[in-house]
């Protein structure tokens, strides 16, 4: 990646990270305000506050959504910091967990569940975080562009014969069309994925039966 592109990414990252802090401040105020309402309800004598149960239920819903907002903005913050260091030590479990939170909206639009199957022990590689996240996202996009509706996509980091692999697999009770593999290779995302993987010093393969996209990654790259 050239110097200007790096600077552009750093710029987007910095602005986005700044905004996530602002969002968290908003969430913190909502949290304290709803917490204060709860405190006041707690000290209210029984029977003196009409519909108290409904208020408590509603406050619990607000708390749940605040937590959701915190999780999303934390992930977004971490994502925005991706361009800060390259190459960086990356835990493939963490990268997949992060991608699940960031890409779930895209899979949900096709009623597809996005989940992970973490590696135990965790797999750590030295790579470029932005390119690796792009490779994962492109793989998800490829699957979404060739499947129908429903099913699940599982991201599974693992080692295959001493090689570091990120698997992006699709499962559905409905069988896929036979020309699934040729459909994949004809997508615009496929060419892009191959380019990204080459820049990471890795390769990409597709196994048709599962079906699963496998990203083979070197343990360490020099960017």
């Amino acid at each position, binding site marked *: 990646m050239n110097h200007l592109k790096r600077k552009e990414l750093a710029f987007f990252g910095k602005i986005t990270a700044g905004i996530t802090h602002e969002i968290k401040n908003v969430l913190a*105020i909502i949290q*304290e305000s709803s917490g204060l309402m709860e*405190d006041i309800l707690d000290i209210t004598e029984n029977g003196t506050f009409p519909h108290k149960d409904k208020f408590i239920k509603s406050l619990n819903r607000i708390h749940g959504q605040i937590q959701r907002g915190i999780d999303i903005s934390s992930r977004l913050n971490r994502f925005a910091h991706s361009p800060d260091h390259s190459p960086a030590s990356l835990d493939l479990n963490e990268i997949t967990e992060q991608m699940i939170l960031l890409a779930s909206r895209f899979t949900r639009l096709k009623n597809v569940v996005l989940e992970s199957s973490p590696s135990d022990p965790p797999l750590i590689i030295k790579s470029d975080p932005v390119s690796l996240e792009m490779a994962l996202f492109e793989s998800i996009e490829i699957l979404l562009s060739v499947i129908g509706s429903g099913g699940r996509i599982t991201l599974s980091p693992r080692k295959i014969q001493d090689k570091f692999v990120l698997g992006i697999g699709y499962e559905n009770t409905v069988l896929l069309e036979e020309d699934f593999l040729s459909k994949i290779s004809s997508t615009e995302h496929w060419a892009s994925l191959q380019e990204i993987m080459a820049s990471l010093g890795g390769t990409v393969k597709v196994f048709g039966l599962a079906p699963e996209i496998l990203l083979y990654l070197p343990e360490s790259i020099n960017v």
Partner: protein
Amino acid sequence: MDRMKILLVDDEHEFVTTLAERLELRNMNVSIATDGEAALGVVENDPPQVVVLDVMMPGLSGLEVLEKIKGMDSKIQVILLTGHGATKDGIRGMQLGAFDYLIKPIDIDELIEKLNEAVKNMG
């Protein structure tokens, strides 16, 4: 038993005023400041036992305020508030004498636990 004396410092006015109300409901004596200079003024005129201090503020940063507070009275305990991805600031703060740090948005029960521990730490 004396009420715990706390100073909350954060540039988000709505945040500090609401948090102050919640702590007052728990029988604490709470002052607020929305910038570092104002916080140092409170510390000088009416020293609290514990300062809950946001790291990221315009003007004097939380870490700068922390250093000044410790210079004024090393017994005052400081709990820092940091954002996600800013734990380095929390660790740096502890090296500068902060009692501990919490990540915003905070959990009120966790804050109260830390406040109690901080007061015990005063000796």
